[in-house]
């Protein structure tokens, strides 16, 4: 009996190793690597830019415009993605070709992000590693020292085409990150991403502007962002408080969530920490 169990233990990892996974969505890809099945991933979507190993894999396209035969050409045994992946018709064809397709809910906040990582770990046959990952994130969040007092007003900007910067409101990944980092989302009064006029920017008067790094060149660099009409007049603009963060760390809600929150928290509490020393 013990021998049989031993054989099972030896066989089980090779069974999982035979999987060839196409991963759709940055949080799915990051989690697969975080729970140790990165070597089974054979293809990713264009949003999966971390870790470096994932960038070297064939890309099957933007996760809303996938092609069925493109995915099948990687000879996958399964496709794991979020419900954002599509079009559904293409994924249906992949399923009909005998590939298991699993679509999980896109994370919107901490609870759903952790739930998604747990499910991905389970799908990948690594539930134990999934629980460890979640425990690690929870520990990272608990370790954060958030200064007491009025929270800083933080605004996350995604782009600035046409003069009106696109800002993150409530019900976004950015909102979750700001709250976890101990800040107050200056865009909290609207939902989703909205272009803000010069006057609205001045009225909500953010103390910190946060920009994901992929958007910074499009916005013309640091100086240009701080001089945008409306932003120049805010406390953030006057004091030059612009935080540039890795896009996936800021908005990915993946396994590096704890690090992202810590980085954001450190940036928006820099003033308080300096004065406390």
């Amino acid at each position, binding site marked *: 009996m013990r021998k049989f169990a031993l054989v099972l233990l030896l066989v089980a990892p090779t069974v999982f190793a035979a999987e060839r996974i196409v991963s759709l969505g940055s949080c799915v890809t990051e989690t697969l690597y975080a729970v140790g099945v990165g070597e089974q991933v054979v293809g990713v979507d264009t949003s999966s830019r971390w870790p470096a190993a994932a960038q070297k894999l064939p*890309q099957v396209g933007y996760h809303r415009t996938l092609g069925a035969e493109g995915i099948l050409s990687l000879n996958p045994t399964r496709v794991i993605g979020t419900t954002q992946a599509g079009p*559904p018709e*293409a994924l*249906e064809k992949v399923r009909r070709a005998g590939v298991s397709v699993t679509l999980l809910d896109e994370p919107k906040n901490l609870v759903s992000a952790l739930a998604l990582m747990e499910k991905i770990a389970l799908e990948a046959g690594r539930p134990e590693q999934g629980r460890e990952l979640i425990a690690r994130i929870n520990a990272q969040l608990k370790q954060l020292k958030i200064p007491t007092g009025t929270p800083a007003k933080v605004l996350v900007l995604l782009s600035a085409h046409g003069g009106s910067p696109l800002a993150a409101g409530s019900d976004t990944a950015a909102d979750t990150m700001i709250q976890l980092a101990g800040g107050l989302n200056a865009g909290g009064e609207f939902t989703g991403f909205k272009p803000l006029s010069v006057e609205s920017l001045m009225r909500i008067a953010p103390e910190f502007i946060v920009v994901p790094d992929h958007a910074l060149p499009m916005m013309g660099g640091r100086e240009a962002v701080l001089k945008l009409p409306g932003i120049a007049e805010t406390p953030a603009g006057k004091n030059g408080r612009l935080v540039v963060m890795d896009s996936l760390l800021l908005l990915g809600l993946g396994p590096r969530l704890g690090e992202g929150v810590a980085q954001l928290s450190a940036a928006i509490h820099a003033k308080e920490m300096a004065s406390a020393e």
Partner: protein
Amino acid sequence: MLGMTLFCNPMPSLVSRAQLLIILALLTLAAALLALSVGPVPIIFGKVIGSLIPGLGTPPEAFEAATVQQIRAPRIALALLIGAALAQAGAAMQGLFRNPLADPGLVGVSSGAAFAAVAAIVFGNSIQVFDWLPARYVLPLATFAGGWLAAITVLRLSSSEGYTRIGVMLLLGLAINAIAGAGIGFLSHIADDIALRSLTFWMFGSLGKAGWNEILIATPLLLLPLILLPRRAQALNALLLGEAEAGHLGVNVEKLKRELIFLIVLAVAASVALAGIIGFVGLVVPHLIRLWVGPDHRLLLPASALLGALLLTLADIGSRLLLAPTELPIGILTALVGGPFFIGLLLRNKTNAGVL
């Protein structure tokens, strides 16, 4: 018909009309076979045949058979149908308007459809329209309805006392395009990032979404105009002389206009609903045929249909292979390859301005 003698035939006498159509049909068939045989998944030709006709060729693996039957075959069927329908509708539209710049989208049908599609993409996730309607049919149905609504509006407004003024119709189409453009702009403004990217890609068209269910619904909608438009070839020839002249030749011009618009809108609305906006085919294919064989609609309509089917099938091969495993939107290819080709043809035929 008397008017026929007025049309010169610039086609070289070596190739007869029937021969031209047969050559185009054979080329289209070859392109369709090529399209079935190539793709990101390498499948040898014997297995492709085996997947199509059980017992022939080499027996394929299950996933190879699924790739040929469920992925390649429906999209090639769709490429043939839509390419033919758009090109023929374009030829008929240019004849109806007696204007070489006419494109099947001119009566507002493409932009009306696009507006409805963008609305479906932007609001699609937040509202469930009808419980009994599966979400995947909301976008094509909305698109089809939007195209018709725009076209009917243009047709109604340009008709009075049983007379449809073609010039007014053209201008109304432009106005509807502008209004729909404003609507699309507004919806893009309020759309989230994901909807924005989805609608950008929709605007460039794709044949990748069609399965056999969609083909079953689409085939009658696209075959009806493909069969009925060529029957109006003689009347379209007469119309080239002018409306009054066509009337004198015994053509019921008002009835003809309404029938043509109905068939063109049916072809374009169904195409856009299934594959998004695929530009160039409807505008340029009829020109290519006209430059080659002249303006006689009896040849122009079927030849345009065949060349449209051929070109769209070839473009789809490029769309699947060039950036594999990613798919390149097909509208980018049709415009990128077709545009320069068309310019070259125009420059060569610059002196022969009478053809246009």
